[in-house]
């Protein structure tokens, strides 16, 4: 009897482990498959001409230069607004905020900001930046919209990085006569920098790949020239991929895969940089 029970336990264990492992494998295979598939199908489209010329023949020929440049501008614009604001907010939460009702309100707001659907950000950007503040459909409006969407990621990852700096570092600095701000600027931020950078890159990675928030705030179908000022609209890689895969009839498949590959390359590079910074900082950390 005892033996049967034990056997039973072993059998359930093997079944359970098998099931869970099987699910993990089924989750991971499509991820790897997706990336490899796009790499293979997209690679033949990549050439210097594809990366450095404008589209022509109604997108069906030529390159994707304005979309690449546009995504680059949007990412920089997003960083300009969201990075300083996000880091300052993280400093407030980690170094100044008391644990009270107001701080809880801030935390709940951050969580909610992170959960708002991206298309709702698009509506908000249209209502506030494009129409109310009259920035028009422009890089400025789109960058501002994207930066509010990116803010929660930057705040929460930076705060975690700041908090992981041991309290004793602050105590020593202050006891040596430094002010609070000097301590934060010279000690805490310096120690937390890798973590802050990681969060920043992960946030911007998301912004670079988003389509819905820029649909009505800054992205356009086609531009005959590169944007000249932040008040010009722009093309962008994710929006371009959407357009050529759904709106253009008889679109050559190779250009579509090529565009997807460039977008994925953009995003994956940022992801890998963030991962490398994080793991190197972890290995070097002495506390």
């Amino acid at each position, binding site marked *: 009897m005892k033996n049967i029970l034990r056997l039973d*336990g072993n059998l359930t264990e093997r079944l359970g482990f098998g099931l*869970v492992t099987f699910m993990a494998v089924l989750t991971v295979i499509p991820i790897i498959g997706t990336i490899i598939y796009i790499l293979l199908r997209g690679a033949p489209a990549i050439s210097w001409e594809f990366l450095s010329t404008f589209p022509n023949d109604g997108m069906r020929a030529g390159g994707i230069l304005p979309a690449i440049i546009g995504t680059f501008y949007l990412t920089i614009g997003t960083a300009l607004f969201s990075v300083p604001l996000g880091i300052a907010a993280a400093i407030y939460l980690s170094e100044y*905020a008391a644990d009270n009702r107001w701080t809880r309100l801030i935390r709940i707001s951050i*969580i909610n900001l992170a*959960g708002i659907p991206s298309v709702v950000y698009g509506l908000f950007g249209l209502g506030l930046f494009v129409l109310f503040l009259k920035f028009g459909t422009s890089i400025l409006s789109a960058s501002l919209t994207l930066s509010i969407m990116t803010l929660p990621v930057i705040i929460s990852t930076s705060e*975690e990085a700041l908090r992981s700096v041991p309290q004793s570092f602050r105590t020593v600095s202050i006891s040596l006569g430094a002010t609070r701000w000097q301590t934060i600027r010279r000690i805490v931020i310096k120690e937390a920098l890798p973590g802050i950078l990681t969060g920043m890159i992960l946030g911007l990675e998301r912004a670079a790949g988003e389509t819905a928030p820029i*649909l009505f705030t800054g992205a356009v179908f086609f531009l005959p020239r590169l944007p000249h000022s932040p008040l010009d609209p722009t093309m962008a890689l*994710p929006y371009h991929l959407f357009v050529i895969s759904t709106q253009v009839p008889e679109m050559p498949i190779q250009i579509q895969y090529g565009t997807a590959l460039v977008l994925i390359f953009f995003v994956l590079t940022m992801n890998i940089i963030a991962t490398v910074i994080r793991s190197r900082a972890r290995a070097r950390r002495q506390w």
Partner: protein
Amino acid sequence: MEKTLNWREFVITRLIKASGYSAVIFVVLIFFFLLREGLPALAEVPLSALFSLRWYPIEGNNFGILPLLTGSFIVTVGAGLIAVPFGIGTAVYISEIAPRWMREILKPLVELLGGLPSVVLGFLGILVLVPFLRRLLDIPTGLTAFTGSLLLGGIAVPTIVSVAEDALDAVPRDYREGAWALGATRWQTIWRVTFPAASSGVLTAIMLGIGRAIGETMAVMMVTGNAPVLALSAGSLFSPVRTMTATIAAEMGEVSNGSTHYHVLFFIGMVLFLISLGVNIAASSVVFKTKKRAERILS
């Protein structure tokens, strides 16, 4: 010197404090602008027409949002049925079973999936998944709610995995050792001790994953066929539908500012905002029991 330093410190401290409250300000601003542009819809379209069964805004002036609500609902339920078991299964595997080297590979891979732009998933959906499903299921079109559910499931999985994995990881080692000492097998320990101890975090993971799925736009718009028909039976899982998010994304570009159609689209945005607010407040009320998790769910 001393004086200027203090003055600078004062200004910087104020600026930092103001930035700290920026998240609150933005949530309020977003809600305000959705109300401002969305509430006029209630004055222009009678409530009974708004909650009717026909969405045909361009020529018919029919603004019934029920087909869109049911469309979002059915796609999200499908996504949940896929993402919850796979997300939790993967989280249990990563946190409890996988050897360390495997964990180091799997975690970044799942994070990578979370970082893939949804437009890329939609693109592959159109070219690969849609034709495949059409042939496999022998249906007239592969652009169905189910196709959307599959993609959304993939998009919700990383959220569920990372939050649930954190929750499982946060269960003290003593619990497991106690169970082993009492003679439980590893599987019994996972199933009867670790998992119940982490259940609130796992619940949060599910809610956030589903919240993510409701709000997804591009992938869903590209593969669900965009047919605003009432989707209530299980059969409609395999026919084209249209979600609230897709409707906004597809139609906002073509309406004139200030028209009824424009206001109704903002009204739909308001509904989406309130749904995500509800989901996230519910999820964070569970989360706040352990602070660390509240921070991790955002990263």
